[in-house]
């Protein structure tokens, strides 16, 4: 499965890419500048985070009942519900709907879940034409890339690179300014919308008591995705649910503030089923696909708080590692601190279990998380799990260290040895330790230890 370079190599290459660094720097500082203002509109942000955390934890404990109610309400509104244990089951279901409806053209509003289950690749293989309609997502789709941020897929690209990518789609030369590029996308994607047979979206929150799904965008692409085609298929991770409008309100007051520093997203679309008989437009069929795909294995484990995530991406924006290497170096669908936790748990066989090392454990992610996920603790826990699977040499080295420092006499002698040789990184070191020492500043060791100075007779 893994012919990809190591995490270390991916991170080093990304950190050396000056263009990428400056694109990331611009994005991260912009996002961070806006957030405090949006939060200042709340009387007590900490209390709001606490409320959101409790709501999300309660959701996990009540999940079976909430999902059952949601499904009943969707069915009562004439909708279709599919229970997908796995990503494959979800994709197969989508494909079966497309075939039954003789669909060829599909428009999509950005959804991380569909990235997780590789929906686009599977549908394209099966001969369907899938167009992403979020501008950033469309850009990375055209470039043959994966999104590099949970809410800002093309954040790693600058305007010139984007003009280049969009230019290949245009018969005439494109002006490189943001307005021209945006207007080009509008007219091109509008054609895709008008031609589409089926619209596919994710779900920001399902509201169990109403059987409604809530989808937020700033561009308005979800409104067209759920308004123009004859079929709307919404896919939700099974944990993205709230009981009622009360809980929804708390979550919605935090999602845009945390994600983009907005007090509200430009469009909040709340849909219950397909069009009614009295309505002139909207889809004839509404499908809700409820996806497990490894989530239930996380539930009830020491990692289960990760399932309270609302995919705002704020943890990436404050992460010193993410802002240095960007999303692609993670090599996973979910990037940043949440991705480093989620990926080894959702896909333990993807060869990405070392992602927990892509963290300085500074805790900025936890501090900024609107639902208070202790990401740094979970990362540490994952490192522990990984190290239990470490090779014999590494285990022996740690055992040696533990033996050396567990008795004062051995501790002293190890320090005096260090003093004699000056600094560790100047020594001819064996492989893994040499790698550790590279890039670190040697700490000079004093000739006389504090212990010796202390023992010297004082006058």
């Amino acid at each position, binding site marked *: 499965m893994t012919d990809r370079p190591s995490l270390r190599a991916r991170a080093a290459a990304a950190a050396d890419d000056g263009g990428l660094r400056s694109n990331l720097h*611009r994005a991260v500082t912009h996002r961070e500048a806006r957030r405090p203002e949006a939060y200042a509109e709340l009387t007590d942000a900490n209390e709001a985070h606490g409320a959101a955390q409790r709501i999300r*934890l309660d959701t996990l404990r009540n999940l079976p009942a909430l999902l059952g109610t949601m499904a009943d309400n969707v069915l009562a509104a004439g909708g279709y519900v599919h229970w997908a*244990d796995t990503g494959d089951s979800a994709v197969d279901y989508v494909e079966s709907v497309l075939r039954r409806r003789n669909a060829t053209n599909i428009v999509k509003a950005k959804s991380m879940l569909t990235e997780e289950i590789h929906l686009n690749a599977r549908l394209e293989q099966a001969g369907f034409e899938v167009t992403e309609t979020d501008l950033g997502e469309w850009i990375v789709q055209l470039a043959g890339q994966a999104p590099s941020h949970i809410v800002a897929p093309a954040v790693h690209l600058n305007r010139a690179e984007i003009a280049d990518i969009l230019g290949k789609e245009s018969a005439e030369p494109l002006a490189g300014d943001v307005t021209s590029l945006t207007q080009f996308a509008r007219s091109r994607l509008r054609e895709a919308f008008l031609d589409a047979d089926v619209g596919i979206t994710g779900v920001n929150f399902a509201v169990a008591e109403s059987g409604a799904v809530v989808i937020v965008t700033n561009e308005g*692409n979800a409104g067209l995705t759920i308004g123009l085609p004859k079929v709307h298929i919404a896919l939700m991770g099974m944990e993205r649910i709230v009981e009622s409008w009360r809980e929804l309100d708390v979550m919605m007051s935090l999602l845009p503030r945390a994600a983009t520093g907005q007090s509200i997203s430009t469009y909040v679309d709340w849909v219950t089923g397909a069009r009614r008989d009295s309505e002139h*437009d909207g889809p004839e069929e509404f499908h809700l696909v409820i996806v497990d795909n490894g989530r239930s294995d996380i539930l009830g484990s020491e990692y289960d708080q990760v399932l309270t995530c609302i995919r705002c991406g704020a943890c990436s924006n404050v992460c010193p590692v993410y802002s240095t290497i960007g999303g692609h170096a993670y090599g996973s669908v979910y990037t940043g601190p949440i991705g480093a936790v989620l990926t080894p748990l959702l896909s333990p066989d993807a060869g990405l279990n070392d992602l927990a090392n892509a963290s300085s454990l500074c805790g900025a992610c936890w501090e900024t998380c609107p639902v208070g996920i202790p990401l740094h603790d979970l990362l540490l826990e994952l490192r522990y799990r990984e190290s239990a699977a470490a090779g014999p040499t590494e285990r022996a080295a740690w055992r040696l260290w533990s033996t050396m420092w567990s008795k004062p006499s051995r501790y002293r002698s190890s320090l005096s040895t260090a003093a004699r040789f000056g600094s560790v990184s100047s020594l001819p070191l064996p492989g893994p330790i040499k790698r550790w020492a590279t890039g670190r500043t040697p700490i000079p060791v004093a000739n006389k230890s504090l212990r010796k100075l202390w023992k010297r007779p004082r006058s």
Partner: protein
Amino acid sequence: MTAPPSGRESGDRSSFLAKVEHRASLPTTPHLIHVAEKDDPAGGVAYTADLSDLVATFTAAAREHKSVVYVVHNDAEHLAAVLDIASDSDVEEFFVSDEAEAREFGNLLEQAGATVRPITEPRQLTQRDTVVTTAVAGVALTGSIALSSGASGSRLLTSLPKSHIAIVPAASIVPTPRDIYQGFAEERWLGSALIIATGPSRTGDIEMQLAFGVHGPGQVVIVVDARP
């Protein structure tokens, strides 16, 4: 649920939920944010904004989100707003939705010399069109407008056109989005879709520079009707 479900279900609900049920019942020790526990965590989020004058707060917030706002307190101001909007040389014709307030505004636009058409087929609205609709509510805190497919019969009126003119009766303005969520959940606005829109469509996907009108309208004009 007394009525039999009318939709269709696939996959295995009972085995799906049995697994979730089992896992959800396992004891875990969550790492909690240290805030005083409230009896009702969903009791609502409190805001610093002054919500004593809903029209004033709505107007300021809507302008901050780049909507153009007219507030009319009497017939003379209403007429002035109509004339101002009718004289927009970029607009060839106004498409008016079949809602009382929008129809009234459309009639006045027509009297002011503008070309006005009813919307017979929302799908046929193009990227060049200007649409007049009624909002079922305004939200003071955020300057948002709420549009219901139950009221207008369409989900697309605010998605398709270039420019959207929304009539907001002052009495329909509610303090916060919470009131809208409650209203829709309690089926005050019957319909399959509710859209809460705040200013023109926007994107920051290219170098974080704000660009308007990427999919939805690039211009939103709100007429707050505060006539007695």
